[in-house]
């Protein structure tokens, strides 16, 4: 229970820090892409999703996704049925002016990125012509209960000293860090 409380506290601390990339331009008002639960056929792919259909009538549209953990995988897919759509997609973490990823639709009308990030990220879509239509799909995997991390153990080097209580089943052999790490 205490672990859950700690997790929740950490989560709330994160959310208020930086919800979207920084800008001084007051006209930039990004749209929040709400994440809702997603149940997949394969439970390992359960997580959260957002699908948004857009008809963009302005030069540039801004969106953002928040509430992410660095332990969650993110898949962002933007597609258009108009394969001649030459829109530019920019993904920014800290500042809209310094995007971390830039791309455009491929010959099938799809652009996709996979990454992990803490907190939030912003999506900027720049349209070359007045009206464009596209779909944004965001999938965020659940945070795995266990993650792979190296074991902090090494093989014991000293002989066992006197134990306060006799073991019910004394260990017959010494283990190595390899065997311990299997549990993680």
């Amino acid at each position, binding site marked *: 229970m205490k672990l859950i409380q700690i997790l929740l506290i950490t989560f709330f601390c994160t959310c208020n820090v930086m919800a979207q990339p*920084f800008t001084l331009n007051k006209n930039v008002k990004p749209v929040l892409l709400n994440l809702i639960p997603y149940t997949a056929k394969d439970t390992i792919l359960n997580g959260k999703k957002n699908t948004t259909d857009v008809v963009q009538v302005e030069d540039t549209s801004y969106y953002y996704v928040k509430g992410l953990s660095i332990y969650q995988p993110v898949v962002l897919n933007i597609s258009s049925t108009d394969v001649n759509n030459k829109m530019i997609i920019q993904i920014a973490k800290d500042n809209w002016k310094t995007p971390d990823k830039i791309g455009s639709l491929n010959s099938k009308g799809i652009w996709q990125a996979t990454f992990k*990030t803490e907190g939030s*990220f912003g999506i900027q879509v720049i349209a070359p012509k007045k009206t464009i239509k596209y779909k944004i799909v965001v999938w965020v995997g659940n945070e795995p209960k266990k*993650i792979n991390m190296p074991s902090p153990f090494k093989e014991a080097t000293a002989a066992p000293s006197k134990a306060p209580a006799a073991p019910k089943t004394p260990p017959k052999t010494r283990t190595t860090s390899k065997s311990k790490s299997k*549990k993680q």
Partner: protein
Amino acid sequence: MKYLILHIGFLLFCYAANAQRAGVVQNAAEASEAANAIIDGILGTVPGIISGGNAAGDFPPLSAGECAPDFNESSNSRMSYQCAPESECQNCFTNANDKMNFFRRQLARLNCIYQNTKNFTTSAVAFGDGASGVHAMTAIAWQRERAKINASFQNLKKTYDTRYIEFIQGLKASLMEFDGCENRYGQGDWYQKSGFIYFEMMKERYKRND
């Protein structure tokens, strides 16, 4: 009643204005099978997402300078332990191990939140300082904004320190569980001999130093 209708009308107007600005036709917050089918198809094209156990480990951080958890420790601080596989001590060690890994993970994430926010703050302040002279926003207005950004970061420092203490105490409690297991099944005074060095290393590693 009239005011209520006016108020609701105004809220609807604001909503419509925002929707128009973004040009969003449908922000599909409802669960639909069609949307799920699209996502199923997309995920099918992502290599290794299932074999990786849905973990983000193989995914690159979004930003090149973004902090990603690093769990590697120097060999000097690694701990020794004694518990044979398939023996009764495994239950005791597994429980303590799970708790310890939970706090390792939380400490690493806390550190990344702090480092990322620090980067964000530094970048925002530098950007604002550079732009305030030429941007329409006056220098005075920027100074107010700047103070807010810095105050927010100072607040985060306090939050970090509070959480750091909680997580470090949790880590120590899990190591003391190991100590109990070792006292019962392996070497006595395990914490003093082995756990203490690891704990001190972790304490220093995640202590805020600015």
